[in-house]
């Protein structure tokens, strides 16, 4: 503090610390991790198989109702988990408040946009 302030030291730091969402972040990060523990191995195996099956193989894979639901679940849980993880990385390494805020907002936008694109693609193929 270079400027003299009439605010007490406690008053100056109030509201600058924890947003009181730490436990929620911790728990949701782990709950999504547990879901992904089951979803990701299935997704990787079937996805890599489908990638090898050409355009028709890809459509058959995605159009299957069982696969369509599981793809949306996997991508959803993964993007949710990714957003939380990247949030921690940004908070750890970016000290400047404005840059940090911009990156955190960008992180949220990216993850939600990717989810919208993936869900649209799967539903378009599966329902059409």
């Amino acid at each position, binding site marked *: 503090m270079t400027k003299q302030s009439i605010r007490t030291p406690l008053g100056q730091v109030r509201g600058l610390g924890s947003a009181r969402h730490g436990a929620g972040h911790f728990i949701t990060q782990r709950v999504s991790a547990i879901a992904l523990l089951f979803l990701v191995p299935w997704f*990787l195996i*079937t996805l890599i198989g489908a990638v090898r099956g050409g355009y028709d193989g890809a459509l058959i894979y995605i159009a299957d109702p069982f696969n369509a639901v599981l793809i949306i679940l996997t991508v959803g849980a993964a993007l949710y988990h990714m957003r939380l993880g990247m949030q921690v990385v940004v908070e750890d390494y970016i000290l400047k408040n404005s840059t940090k805020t911009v990156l955190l907002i960008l992180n949220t936008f990216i993850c939600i946009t990717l989810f919208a*694109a*993936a869900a649209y*693609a*799967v539903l378009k193929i599966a329902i059409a």
Partner: protein
Amino acid sequence: MSSWTDKRPMSPHVSIWKWHMTMASSILHRITGCAIYVGAFLIVAWLFAAAAGPDMYEPMAGLIGSIWGQLVLFGFTLAMSYHLLNGVRHLFMDAGKGFNPKFASFTAGLALVLSVVLAVSVWLLAGLVPGVDPLSIANTLLGAAQ
């Protein structure tokens, strides 16, 4: 001159630490996490290309089928495998288990070794999906190498 005027001792920075297995695993967990973040764009792009039609899908399939595409896809599988297995390790540590230094180093190394096993297993199992030629990948790799 540093503007740091606080006389109290600073927490030592990363550059003075000796590298440990557990430290490397923690850093690698974060690196693979960031790599998967980038890879997620590719997965969504693949799904989107399939929905957009063959005009968009075929160039993408060609890219994935190339040697570089296959390397990226396998690298993605490897990063996922490591992050998943080390994530299991983290879940146990969250529950307060596995902190004995020797055991923690052992599980850190184990996650690294098993991630290679898992990634290779995933690729082998992917060949068993019905309607898919398990040898096409080998042919692609051989064809690209020649």
